[in-house]
């Protein structure tokens, strides 16, 4: 009879043995989804304008990004253009796109998109100049990077 009386009372403690597994699972998820910032911004971080009719940029590997914003030094006026890790002139946009093209396969070139990340206080003139350069070398797919939202008042 003692067999039955010995039964323990109360809840057993929750086993934490699977905790590392769960954590590792989360860890792998974040490791895979993480994209580390490749470009350090030399210019001031552009505050993007807001728009509602946005399209997601697909195929990240086929996107070349051009940053436009003010210089970090507030004494320097005018819009600065940054690609990769350097500040360039408007007319150097062509060589930037060509070098981006050279890194891709030939058949992928026509799917390449140029993403323009410009500060909302930048001048349209700069943007138009860049667009003109892009037209010169037939890089016609352009995406004006924006944040998704409906608060347009902050744009102007």
């Amino acid at each position, binding site marked *: 009879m003692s067999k039955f009386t010995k039964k323990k009372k109360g809840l057993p403690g929750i086993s934490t043995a699977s905790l*590392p597994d769960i954590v590792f699972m989360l860890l792998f998820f974040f490791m895979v989804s993480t994209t580390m910032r490749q470009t350090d911004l030399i210019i001031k971080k552009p505050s993007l304008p807001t728009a509602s009719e946005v399209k997601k940029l697909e195929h990240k590997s086929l996107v070349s990004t051009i940053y436009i914003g003010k210089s970090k030094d507030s004494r320097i006026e005018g819009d600065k253009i940054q690609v990769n890790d350097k500040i360039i002139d408007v007319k150097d946009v062509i060589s930037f796109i060509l070098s981006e093209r050279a890194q891709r396969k030939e058949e992928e070139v026509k799917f390449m998109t140029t993403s323009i990340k410009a500060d909302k206080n*930048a001048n349209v003139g700069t943007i138009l100049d860049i667009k003109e350069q892009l037209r010169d070398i037939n890089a016609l797919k352009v995406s004006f990077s924006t944040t998704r939202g409906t608060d347009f008042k902050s744009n102007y």
Partner: protein
Amino acid sequence: MARRENSEINAGSMADIAFLLLIFFLVTTTMDVDSGIARKLPEKTDETPTVTIKEKNILDIVINRNNQLLVENENAKVEDIKKLAMDFIDNGGGLSQPKGDQPGEPCDYCNGAKDPTSSDHPSKAVISLTSSRGTTYGMYISVQNEIEMAYNELRNKLSLKLYNRSYKDLLKDYKDDPSEALKAKLDNLKDKYPQIITEPEPIK
């Protein structure tokens, strides 16, 4: 002599190590997907073809260096552009662009006022956006966004009427399952309301 016995490695700290890594990746992760207004630039050609477009088929939007707006020579606010553009595109006051031998047809899907002084047909309606070099980019994007909104809403309306499904949903469907039938539907909608936006030389 030290004991050579193989004592088991304590795995209790494994969770801590994993947590540490997890927190590191949590912090460094940027999940934001790049999104933006997609535009296709016009191809550059050597000779500029001369096209004659009637004044009434152009919606003239001008932004000056102080971010003030002028639509068809009248002051306007950014929020108004969508409605103005929709009225203009959807007017349907005349015949469409003749396709090959086929003569132009009146717009049978337009819900506009059929005003003879406004655009003839969505396929003829051109939106002209002139900006000054000094205009701020935020303003420019806002206007572009409003124009995009106008086109999307018109396509939406037509899509609901023809296919009982909104344009946005159709685009989503197409992404999940790129089939020919869906593509035909989307192309039809895009063909009915083509985006014709021209950006003339900026005001100096």
